[in-house]
C-alpha cells in the first residue's frame, strides 16, 4: 500500500511483494479457495479431535480396541461353551454330519499319534498316543473329560498331547470329540488307567473328608 509495485512490472504478471531476501522476491498470489477451505477444515477437525479424544476421552486407542475385540471373542467362546455338557456331546456323537467333520480333522491331525482306528496302533507298531477306542481312560471317559484334554492338552506336558483349541478352534475340537465319542456308547463302563492322575485326585478329597 505504502510501497506501490515496481514500475517496471509486467501488468500481466501478479504483483510482487516488496520484501526481498538474497535477491529473491515473492509473488503476492492468493491460494485457491478450495485449498484454503480444506486447510480450515483440518484446523476445525484438530480442535474437535483434540477435545474429543484427548480431553473428553471419546474413542479408543489401539490397545483398548484390541482388548475390546479379544473380550468379544472370549465372550463368544464362553457362550459356545455354555451349551456344551456331557449330554450335548453324546448327542453330537450320534449326529453323522458332525462326526464326519470330526473324522476329517482327526485323520489330518490326531491320526499321527492315535491311529486311524483310534487304537494307537499302526501296522502292528505302537503309536505315541493313548488308545481311544477302549474303555480304559487316563483322564476320565466322560465326553467333557475328553473335551477338556483335547482343548487344553494333557496335564503332563512331557507326554506330548498339546492344547488343540488354539490350533483348531473350539468348533473343530468339539467335532473331533464327537467323532471319538461315536466309538463309544453312553453309559458304558469307564475304568481309569493305572497311571491315571484322577485316581489320586479322587483319593485325596476322600482322605481330606475323613480327617
Amino acid at each position, binding site marked *: 500500500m505504502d510501497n506501490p509495485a515496481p514500475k517496471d512490472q*509486467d501488468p500481466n504478471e*501478479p504483483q510482487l511483494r516488496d520484501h526481498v531476501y538474497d535477491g529473491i522476491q515473492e509473488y503476492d498470489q492468493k491460494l485457491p479457495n478450495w485449498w484454503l477451505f480444506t486447510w480450515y477444515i483440518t484446523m476445525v477437525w484438530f480442535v474437535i479431535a483434540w477435545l474429543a479424544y484427548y480431553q473428553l476421552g471419546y474413542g479408543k486407542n489401539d490397545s483398548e480396541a484390541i482388548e475390546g475385540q479379544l473380550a468379544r471373542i472370549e465372550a463368544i467362546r464362553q457362550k459356545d461353551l455354555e451349551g456344551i455338557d456331557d449330554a450335548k456331546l453324546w448327542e453330537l456323537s450320534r449326529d453323522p454330519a458332525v462326526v464326519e467333520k470330526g473324522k476329517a480333522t482327526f485323520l489330518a491331525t490326531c491320526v499321527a499319534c492315535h491311529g486311524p482306528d483310534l487304537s494307537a496302533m499302526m501296522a502292528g507298531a505302537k503309536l*505315541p498316543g493313548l488308545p481311544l477306542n477302549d474303555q480304559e481312560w487316563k483322564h476320565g471317559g466322560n465326553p467333557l473329560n475328553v473335551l477338556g484334554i483335547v482343548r487344553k492338552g494333557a496335564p503332563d506336558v512331557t507326554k506330548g498331547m498339546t492344547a488343540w483349541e488354539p490350533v483348531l478352534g473350539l468348533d473343530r475340537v468339539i467335532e473331533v470329540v464327537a467323532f471319538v465319542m461315536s466309538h463309544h456308547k453312553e453309559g458304558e463302563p469307564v475304568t481309569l488307567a493305572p497311571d491315571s492322575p484322577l485316581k489320586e485326585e479322587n483319593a485325596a478329597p476322600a482322605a481330606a473328608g475323613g480327617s
Partner: protein
Amino acid sequence: MKQSLNTTSLGSINSDGSKKNIHPADVKGRFMFWRRAVSLVLLGIYVGLPWIPVNGFPAVFLDVLHRRFHFFGLAIATQDLWLGFFLLTGLGFSLFYITSLFGRVWCGWTCPYTVFLEHVYRRIERWIDGDAPARRRLDAAPWTAEKIVRRVIKHGLYLLISAVIAHVFMSYFVSIKGLYSMMQASPGEHFLAFGVVVFLTFALYGAFSWFREQFCVIMCPYGRLQSALTDDHSVIIGYDQKRGEPRGKASDPDAGDCIACNRCVQVCPTGIDIRNGLQLECIGCAACIDACDSVMSKLSRPKGLIRYDSYTGLQGGKTRLVRPRTIFYSVLVVLGTIAFGFAVNSVKPVRASAVRMPGGAYFVTGDEVRNQFFVRVINKLNEPAQFRLSLDGDMPEGLQVNGLDEMLDLPAMGEAQKTLVLSVPKAAFSGKIPFKVRVTDVDSEMSVLTSQLELLGPESESTPTKTLNAKDYIQ
C-alpha cells in the same frame, strides 16, 4: 480488466482465489479422433474385465475377503504379494521411461482421470449445456426454470455415472456376482462395501463435476515431476516460436504464422497458453495441436505450428530419442522385466510350512525319542490338487514316521494342517538331525520344501564320544 495468461499464475484460479470454470471449446482432428478411440477401448476394458471369466474367476478379481488375487487365470495368494513390488515399481518406472521419451502421453491419453473427465463427464456436459459459449452464457445466466432443469439433468447424470463407475470399481473386489447379491441386500448387511461405493460416488461426482483440472494441476504429483523427467530431447507438445512469432494478422507479410486467433487457448482443458512454452499444467492432451492444425489448414499454411516435438526440435534441431538417459532407462526396464519374469516363475502352486508343535522340544517315552511338528500345506491353485508328503534329509535308522503316510487332498485354494510325529530309538539318536518336509503335487510332480526343521533329542554332545587327546590339537 481481463488478465491474460502467464506462466506465473494459474489460468484456472482467479486472482481472488476463486475457481475459474474452464469451458474448453469443441475441437476436431486426428488426435481427438484417436484419443476418443483409445478412451473407448480403455472404458471397455475397465467395465468389461470383471465380466470376463478366466478359469472360473473374473479376469481381474482382487478377492480381499479370501485373500486371493486373480489376474487372467493366475491366482496369487497373499504369500506372493511381494510380486506387487515388481508390479508397482514397474508401472512407476514405465511412466518415467515413457515420460523421458514422449512427455506426458499418459496424462493426455490414458490416465483414468482424463478418460473419465474428457470422454464421459465433459461429453454429458456438452450434450446438456451445449458448446463452450453456450455453457459460459448459461453459467452467467440468472436462475431461470430452464437453467434449473438443465442443471438438475446434468448433475443427475453425473451422479448416475459416478455411481456406475463406483459399482464397477467395487466389482473388482467382490466380483459381479457378489456385487449383485450385495445390491439385493440391505446396505446394513455390507456396510463397508456400501460405504466405499457411496464415498466413491460422491468423490467421483465432486472430482469430475467441479474439481476437474485442479486435481491434475495441483494435487497429482506426476505433473510436478515433469521437469525432472523430461529433457531437451523429450517429445512434448510445443509451439514453434521461430515459425509463429511475431504474431500478426494473416494478411500481414511481416508477421509469423501465428495469427493470434487464440484457438489453442480456447480448447485447452487446463486453461494455459501453450505458446508460453511447456508448463506444469499441460497434460499433453494435444487439443491445441488439432485446433491449430485446423486453422493452419484453412489458411493453407503447413500444419504443425503446435506439434509433438522436443524442445530441440522446436528450435530447429534434431530430436534424439536414443540418448544416455533413455539407454540407461531401457537397460533398467529390461533388467526389471527379467527380474519380474523370474519372480513370476518362482511362484509355486503350493506352499508348505512346518513348525514344532508347542509343548516340548522332544518327548522321551521308554527308549524312544519323539518329535512332533505341524505341517501346513496351502493349495494356491484354483483347482483341487493331491499332494504327497515325504521327508527330505539324512534320516536315522529305525525312524518311525506318523502323519505323512496318506495322500493329502486339498480343494481349490484350500489348506490343511497335518500333524507329523517322528519317533526314533534312543540308541539311533546321536545328535540333532536337520531335515525338511517335501510336499509334491501328484499331478505335476512339482514339489516344494518347508523351511529346515530339526529332529531333537537328549543332547549327546554333552557326553563326549571321544576322549580329548592333546596330540590332536598340536601340529
